[in-house]
């Protein structure tokens, strides 16, 4: 076992899946010769050739649309959209096709497709490179949404996504790509989709986070007896673990990087209100970004929920 960053962990996963299963193909802009703009697909072209590591034209609709056809035909495409901000041209393909093919053909055709895409703020990128619009995708029935929180979860979740019989959008927080190193087993392992994990056990308050917000939530939780849940999948999501925790602690704070209104935290809060309200000592609280257009890099740090803001919300919840 070696301590590696998330780029390396994802790269290991892709190498191993492509080695084991000739149906796996990787496609997208700059994924081949360049090895991906973040280097996640480095070395795949050299090892597996241009038929399985496909540098595509600059064509998001084409990439995802073609990947749907390839998946229906029997391949296991892993399509990369260079940044999540550029995926919307292909929204039609995702929302009207990938997610519905099984249903529309009554199971005759399916779409075992993975769409990998970097997302999220915190790397001082240009405009449109930093938004967190995971809720758009979690709102689509028939599409799974996975979000790793570090190298270890990235490798295991990607394996599950590739072998899942349905389309999965795999969201990679750019801020985490090179931020942390973790021990990642050399051998293949799978972390199931739809399940969360306890990042920390505690009894007084439930904190829920995913992606790059997990790091900050863990730091903010210092000094509190907090049960910290790393959601890892937003659709389907592990309501059972969240509700179990809230029934134990009686308090919940949900932390998301996205703007507050209609973010995924709202879904979690509503579910807690429906199924565990009798156990609550106070309101379920959300920490989120503001309902504004994500600012350019000079104001980015003021926009993203920081440790201090999370801590304040935890304190507020603890007063009940």
């Amino acid at each position: 076992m070696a301590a590696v960053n998330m780029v390396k962990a994802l790269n290991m996963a892709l190498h191993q899946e492509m080695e084991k299963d000739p149906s796996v193909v990787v496609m997208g802009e700059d994924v081949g010769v360049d090895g991906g703009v973040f280097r996640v697909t480095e070395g795949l072209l050299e090892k597996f050739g241009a038929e399985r590591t496909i540098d595509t034209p600059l064509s998001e609709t084409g990439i995802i649309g073609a990947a749907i056809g390839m998946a229906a035909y029997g391949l296991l495409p892993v399509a990369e959209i260079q940044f999540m901000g550029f995926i919307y041209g292909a929204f039609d393909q995702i929302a009207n096709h990938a997610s519905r093919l099984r249903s529309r053909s009554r199971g005759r055709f399916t779409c075992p497709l993975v769409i990998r895409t970097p997302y999220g703020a915190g790397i001082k990128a240009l405009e449109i490179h930093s938004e967190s619009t995971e809720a758009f995708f979690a709102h689509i029935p028939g599409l799974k949404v996975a979000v790793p929180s570090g190298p270890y979860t990235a490798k295991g979740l990607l394996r599950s996504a590739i072998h899942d019989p349905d389309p999965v959008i795999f969201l990679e927080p750019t801020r985490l790509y090179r931020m942390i190193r973790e021990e990642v087993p050399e051998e293949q392992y799978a972390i199931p989709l739809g399940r969360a994990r306890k990042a920390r056990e505690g009894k007084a308050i439930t904190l829920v986070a995913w992606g790059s917000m997990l790091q900050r939530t863990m730091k903010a939780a210092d000094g509190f007896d907090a049960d910290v849940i790393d959601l890892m999948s937003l659709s389907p999501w592990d309501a059972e673990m969240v509700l179990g925790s809230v029934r134990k602690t009686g308090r919940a704070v949900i932390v998301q990087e996205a703007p507050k209104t209609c973010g995924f935290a709202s879904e979690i809060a509503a579910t807690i209100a429906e199924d565990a309200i009798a156990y609550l000592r106070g309101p379920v609280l959300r920490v989120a970004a503001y309902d504004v257009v994500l600012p350019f890099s000079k104001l980015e740090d003021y926009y993203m929920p920081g440790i201090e803001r999370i801590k304040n919300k935890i304190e507020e919840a603890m007063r009940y």
Partner: protein
Amino acid sequence: MPEKRIESFDVKRLEILDEEGSVDKTLMPALSGEEIKSIYEMMLLSRAFDERALSLQREGRLGTYASIRGQEAAQVASAFAAEKSDWIFPSFRETGVQIALGYPIYMLFQYWSGDERGMKCPDGLNVFPICVPVGTHLPHAVGAAIAMKIRKEKKAAIAYFGDGATSKGDFHEAFNLAGVFSAPAVFICQNNQYAISVPLSRQTASSTLAQKAIAYGFTGLQVDGNDVFAVYKAAREAMEKAKQGGGPSFIECFTYRLADHTTADDSTRYRPVEEVEKWRGRDPVKRLRLYMEKEGLFSEEFQRHLEEKVQKTIEEAFRKMEEIGHPPLSGMFAYTFKKPSPMEAQQMKEFLSDGGG
């Protein structure tokens, strides 16, 4: 019944200024010596901005920056053909266009340093905010052009983009709309032969980009994109045609990006240095200078004077950006809607009391 030929097309390429600085006089556009000198000055200014931006980025004082080095002729000469009343729709690699149009340079520094105040186009100029999602601004240009037509105003909407953009659906939808509505739009593609690492051959199986316009019912012309006169002539004629009710045009400026895609890129991973060197020899600035020398429009003293002038302009612009300083925190909330939503207003109050983050 025999098959009949029902249509045939050809694709032209325009070249006026060769690499030795000689011109084809029969094709030369009407430009005075002063105008040519002014184009040259703006090319130097664009290059000086570019160099300063790259070095500031290395020092960590600007964010990611997209260099225009090698594309100065395509940018400056085409923008020089536009009028102040035209509307311009730039992509993210258009420093030379913005500078030639008179966009304030300190605002370009603001933009690239991560301050959106740099995108507030001053009154009297109609330059749309820099478009980052590739090709998605092309329909906007068509829409503005249709509006100009409805208002019966003699203006053109001019859109700039790269070769990669021609693979996007937005490009094809925009071209189709422009053709159908005979919109006064001018599409200017800087075919610098790469979209990050992806070479032109992976972008299209067509032998030129220019020919793509034919399918949408209007003309496409390839020009030597490192030749200021060919670019200017093609752009000027396309703009005049648009303003006379002649509909859209497409100009493919065949050129080369001499620098990395952006400061976050390493182009040695995907293209041979010999290729870059070959194109360095075709430097558009040098080529214009050779012409000016031949025509007696150039002297060492003129060059020294210009270099000092552009350096001073760049320094003053940078200093102005620094003096204006950090954007106000409340700026994050000021422009979501004309009137903030109740939620936003509440959030702003919280933000201003706890400082955000």
